[in-house]
């Protein structure tokens, strides 16, 4: 998952970026003012935008309005030092999804960031299950048919992204964009290696290989191609049935 952090206070931005990278293992891009934030958000490659309100050049509220004006539905978490219900109401009405008042708790920030990403992808529970494959996004553990699967951090992040979008073809480019920040050299063959290793590890726990990740040549990857909307499954997971919400304005 890739997060855009727009915050002008360099020390705070440092801490937040480190926490989001170390904790849930997100890729974090940092923009130090409103205009830079707007440029980054324009790439539409983020799963969450963490936005400070008081920013030079372009304030947080205006940036939020710009984001929503181009029908970008990326979840936005606002960091604010302002008091009063009025400004919070104004923010939420302008399209913010959540807010945190400074000084905030890092653990709470991470939990809210995860919840917003989950919600943005249509999942309500931090544990996602597809065809006997269960990913616990809190513990970052993967279980297939009751057997624990040991994954590297990057493999886990690939799987976490894919399990949020079952049956949807995810291109290599999309995977790259959502797993790495812009400081990363984009080599698509890196993704191929990771997906290949991931597929092997997921099959290794089964008596017979049952590829759950399908490679669509030249188009990308697809998780759980054989998934059917059975009643017992949809009660456990509600990922694919919920469309990604359209922007409110």
């Amino acid at each position: 998952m890739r997060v855009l952090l727009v915050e002008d206070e360099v020390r705070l931005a440092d801490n937040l970026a480190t926490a989001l990278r170390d904790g849930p293992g997100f890729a974090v891009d940092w923009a130090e003012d409103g205009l830079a934030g707007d440029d980054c958000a324009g790439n539409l490659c983020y799963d969450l935008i963490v936005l400070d309100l008081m920013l030079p050049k372009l304030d947080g509220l205006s940036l939020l309005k710009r984001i929503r004006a181009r029908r970008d539905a990326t979840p936005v978490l606002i960091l604010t030092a302002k008091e009063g219900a009025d400004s919070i109401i104004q923010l939420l009405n302008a399209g913010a999804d959540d807010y945190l008042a400074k000084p905030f708790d890092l653990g709470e920030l991470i939990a809210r960031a995860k919840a917003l990403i989950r919600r943005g992808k249509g999942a309500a529970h931090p544990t996602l299950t597809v065809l006997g494959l269960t990913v616990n996004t809190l513990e970052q553990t993967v279980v297939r048919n009751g057997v624990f699967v040991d994954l590297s951090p990057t493999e886990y992040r690939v799987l976490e992204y894919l399990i949020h979008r079952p049956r949807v073809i995810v291109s290599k480019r999309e995977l790259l964009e959502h797993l790495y920040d812009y400081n990363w050299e984009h080599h698509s063959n890196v993704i191929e290696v990771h997906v290949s290793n991931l597929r092997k590890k997921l099959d290794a726990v089964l008596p017979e290989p049952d590829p759950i990740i399908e490679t669509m040549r030249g188009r990308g990857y697809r998780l759980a191609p054989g998934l059917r909307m059975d009643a017992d499954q949809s009660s456990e997971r509600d990922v694919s049935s919920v469309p990604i919400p359209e922007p409110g304005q």
Partner: protein
Amino acid sequence: MKLAIQPRSIAFRLIVAVLAVELVSSILVVVLSFGYERHIHFRAFDVMLHGRADSILGAVQDAEDPGDNVMLDKADLHIPPDDVYEVYDEAGHLLGRSDNWQGAGPGVPTHSLGDFSQIRVSGHHYRILRIQGSRTIDPGEHGGGKLRKVTIVYGSPTFHAWHAVRGAVEFYAAGSIILLIVTGPLIAWLLHRGLLPLRQLASLASQVSVDAWQFTPPASAYSTPELAPLTHAIESVLQRLEQSFIQQRAFVSDAAHELKTAVAVIKSSLQLLTMKRRSAQEYQAGLERCLADSLRLEAIVADMLTLARAESSAPVDGPQSTANLPACIDQVVVQLETVAAHRNVQVNTTVSNSIEAFEVALAPEACTLLLSNLLLNAIQHSLPASAVEIILILETEENAPTAVVQIQDHGDGIPLEALSHVFDRFYRGDPSRARTTGGTGLGLAISKAIVTKAGGSISIASQPDPALPDQGTAVIVRLPISR
């Protein structure tokens, strides 16, 4: 003041005053009417006495006796039963007397004629008139008859007249009392109505609070000459108060934002350290970062206090506190020598007009703070290997000598859109630059507060275009010179 002991409402005082005036005038009316009525009634009384005495004279007849005497013929007399009379002839013999009287006594006839006098007859006051009349006996005879003189004493009780006078006075008195009783509540009601604009104004003014500054005085408050000055005064006071409240609120909000951000930095730094196990070096580095963050928080608080002190209306160190401007400049240049050297910036001081020492109306500490703020800004925003110029000029125009200090740097300048905000609190023209210089965004706000308090002015001009030779920023401070 007596009123301070027992304060009463204006309406109450006005009512009491009006009623007192009314009471005094009704007493005057009663007294005057008494005098007037008494005068009128007794004049009529006297005319009546004369008439009745004359009718007594008419009843004096020829006695038809040999002595040609006169007699009183009571048969044709029709006088009120209360009246008394007696008639004497020239010799003082009593010719006749009313039945209800024993006579005025021997004293009365000695009174001069035509006089009125007072006597008491059977317990009543009587007014007595003496007139002298004459009757000609046998006018047809030789010699034109005989002239017989008679003296008539006639009296009538005065209580009728007094009764009439008392009736009139009682009428006036009763009228006045009724008037007093009626006008009291009437005045109260009229005053209540008349003071309506004042009460409206008061109720509107009482609705003004820190959260609701809306004050729209009623039209009556402006059109009433007595209320217009009060209304304007309330309006302008409220406007000034609102302005200062807005400023204070903006400052508190800005300060809260800065402080919360600073606290958020420290808190997140500490929480980051506890997120997972770290090596001793990592902990040490983290603690050092937290310490640096705390120092920044401390600097913000210190600057906010300085600004609050500079903006307070009270003089810093008494009104007579002055500072020697050239000496302060020298002192600040020496103070910041190392900073300038560290950034490879040269500081040149030019003092024109061969100025020696002179004083500006500023506390020395404030003067030094002002100059060091401005010079530090200039040094920090200078390009490496450039120079900062401090130019001091004395203007002696129009009997108001002014010291002009210009601090010019050759840095990257301030963008035009930021120029109007540089004196705002917590404003940072360029956040990345503020980060490298560690400013709190209060330096120029403090400088402006100091200069404004000293009665001077501060302005800033900047040329951010690197293509032009005069690129850089100039801050110009004008301070009045105190003698």
